[in-house]
């Protein structure tokens, strides 16, 4: 069965530090890949997505992610974290064809220290 793993449940970084959130997926082919962010009390907002082409994807709010087929990974990065980035981050995969359901990871909660 397809699955998405986010190994880090909680991460704390200092404001201005770099950030990398990990995501691994289990699927035979290359799925569509997404990162969503959820601020406290809010719904999910799409940060970026990958379907094909350039494996380094730029998103909103200064985030980027790199697809590595050999590692089945799609890690999210930001060079300098701002206090407003404190939120929960979800990696998701969608299978091509069929009803294209999204499969979510368990999420990584990011805390930012001043």
């Amino acid at each position: 069965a397809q699955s998405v793993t986010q190994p880090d449940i909680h991460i704390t970084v200092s404001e201005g530090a770099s950030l990398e959130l990990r995501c691994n997926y289990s699927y035979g082919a290359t799925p569509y890949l997404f990162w969503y962010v959820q601020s406290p009390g809010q719904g999910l907002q799409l940060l970026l997505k990958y379907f094909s082409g350039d494996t380094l994807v730029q998103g909103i709010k200064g985030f980027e992610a790199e697809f590595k087929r050999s590692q089945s990974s799609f890690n999210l990065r930001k060079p300098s974290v701002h206090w407003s980035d404190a939120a929960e981050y979800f990696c998701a995969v969608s299978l091509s064809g069929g009803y294209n359901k999204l499969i979510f990871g368990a999420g990584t909660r990011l805390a930012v220290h001043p």
Partner: protein
Amino acid sequence: DVKVTQSSRYLVKRTGEKVFLECVQDMDHENMFWYRQDPGLGLRLIYFSYDVKMKEKGDIPEGYSVSREKKERFSLILESASTNQTSMYLCASRGSLGDNEQFFGPGTRLTVL
């Protein structure tokens, strides 16, 4: 911009009550989804609909039903609410063309006492 709205942000119900959660989208999307979100479990798909009056079970449909009488509206129904259905419920919609991006509503936090 795509807008997905949910009828309530917070809801408190008693065990055994029938509960309706409503979701409306304004982008003429064919596909609509209901998820529940629980700490440490991420989002889990309850039901989805790919057309009016059409529905498919997701990964955790037990205790829930859905209704899609109009394209823009997708309702989640808890026939007899139980305490283990206390959760955050998120609705999403997606078009049939292009990429697979889903657009999410703000969520309804349901507490069953």
